[in-house]
């Protein structure tokens, strides 16, 4: 019986964890995936733990996935969404969280529009914090479940070629994915209109390609991101239609490639914009496997972080 621990107390971003941590999370998630495919999908591990899900920004998939993961581990959960709370009355983030912690909460899952908000909290409070997306910074559990799904589909990531297509500038999924894939030894390329690729992208040691066909020809796996209509405060692209014409991926494009590639999408899909329906629903897409793996990955992260703390 080997005891194993993560090197970190919080999951703030993939940047702050080690390759060994990722391996341990994957190993544990594989066991939880078995659990959630049994007739009884619940285990009692976290039965004396209370988790607060603090969503200062909208989310459907991630919140449901976290809630389900928590419930399948038998944790008690409380939910909070900024839209219906005292945040609207001007309470500071630290005050809000300290108030919640006074109710004896052990772990916090937080989504916040400000990059670095979970990092700030981690410096002031004692509970374990899991970042469920902080602005345009990181979304670590999404990157973990993406890499886990890729590994399931094409095998170990070492040496694999993965392209991330779409709005790289505004995407926390892109940044977390780049860190995660690189830590696992994969080669990463980003592809999108020049206006949606950050100026300092070279600092991340990734390839950049503006032609989507060339990018797809190069890769084994393509992770296609959503065009984030809510973050387009200035016009980065002339129109959605033009984006679709140059960067949209349809079956004809995939069929013109010399090999079959795997398609991921973190959801929600804008059907007919970044992906056509026939691609999204094809055998090459592993979008629904990503959702299933999301619950297993989040169970693993919660289990491993909660287990570090002694009663």
């Amino acid at each position: 019986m080997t005891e194993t621990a993560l090197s970190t107390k919080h999951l703030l971003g993939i940047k702050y964890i080690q390759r060994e941590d990722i391996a341990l999370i994957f190993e544990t998630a594989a066991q939880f995936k078995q659990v959630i495919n049994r007739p009884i999908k619940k285990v009692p591990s976290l039965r004396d733990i209370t988790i607060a899900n603090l969503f200062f920004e909208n989310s459907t998939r991630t919140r449901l996935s976290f809630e389900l993961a928590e419930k399948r581990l038998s944790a008690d959960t409380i939910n909070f969404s900024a839209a219906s709370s005292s945040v609207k009355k001007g309470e500071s983030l630290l005050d809000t969280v300290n108030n919640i912690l006074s109710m004896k909460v052990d772990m916090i899952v937080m989504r916040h529009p400000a990059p670095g908000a979970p990092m700030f909290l981690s410096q002031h409070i004692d509970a374990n914090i899991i970042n469920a997306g902080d602005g345009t910074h990181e979304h670590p559990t999404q990157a973990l479940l993406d890499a886990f799904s890729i590994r399931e589909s094409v095998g170990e990531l070492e040496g694999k070629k993965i392209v991330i297509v779409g709005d790289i500038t505004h995407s926390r999924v892109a940044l977390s994915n780049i860190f995660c894939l690189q830590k696992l030894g994969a080669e990463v390329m980003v592809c999108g209109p020049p206006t949606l690729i950050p100026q300092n992208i070279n600092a991340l040691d990734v390839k950049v390609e503006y032609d989507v066909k060339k990018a797809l020809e190069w890769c084994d796996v393509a992770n296609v991101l959503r065009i984030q209509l809510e973050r387009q405060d200035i016009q980065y692209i002339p129109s959605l239609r033009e984006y679709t014409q140059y960067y949209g991926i349809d079956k004809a494009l995939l069929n013109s490639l010399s090999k079959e590639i795997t398609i991921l999408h973190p959801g929600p899909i804008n059907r007919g914009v970044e992906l056509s329906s026939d691609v999204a629903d094809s055998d090459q897409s592993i979008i629904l496997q990503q959702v299933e793996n999301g619950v297993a990955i989040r169970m693993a992260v919660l289990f491993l972080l909660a287990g570090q703390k002694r009663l």
Partner: protein
Amino acid sequence: MKKRGKNILNNERFGLTLTRLGHQIIEHYPDFENLCIIGIQESGVRFGERIQQILQQLSGGKSVPFGKLDITFFRDDFRRRDAPISAKSTEIDFLVEGKTVLIVDDVLYTGRTIHAAMTAIQNFGRPDKIELMVLVDRRFNRHFPIEADYTGITVDALDDSYVRVDWKEEVGKDRIMFYPAERK
């Protein structure tokens, strides 16, 4: 620290003990009807595989369904150790509903592992009956009212002492080692 180990069951007697346990099962379940064996990860799996082989030899080739169970997520000492224990795989590819489940583990000590295993097995259905086979029973150390139905050998040991089962597949010989508590 634990250097003065004593071999309390050598290779030859070890084999006899396993065969005796096999015969006991056949005595109770002559046709293995409705019987299945579940070994607890990790050392209970090795023991279970051996028992399965012995039953096959003794019965002239009849086999009993065998599964592996990992109880990591069902342990009651979560958050009471420094770090979580890493999970092994659970492989039970048959239904336990209505079956007689024979749980197999190497050492019965506090009973907490078996308690967790019984909870875990119920996630796979409602067995008719659960029985327990252990190679070593450390009596007097129990934390739960749990007893084995089939026992290899019984050891009277203090809490600080340590019993370890070695398997031929791993260290080249079958034996049970006993490490008495260090004198303070």
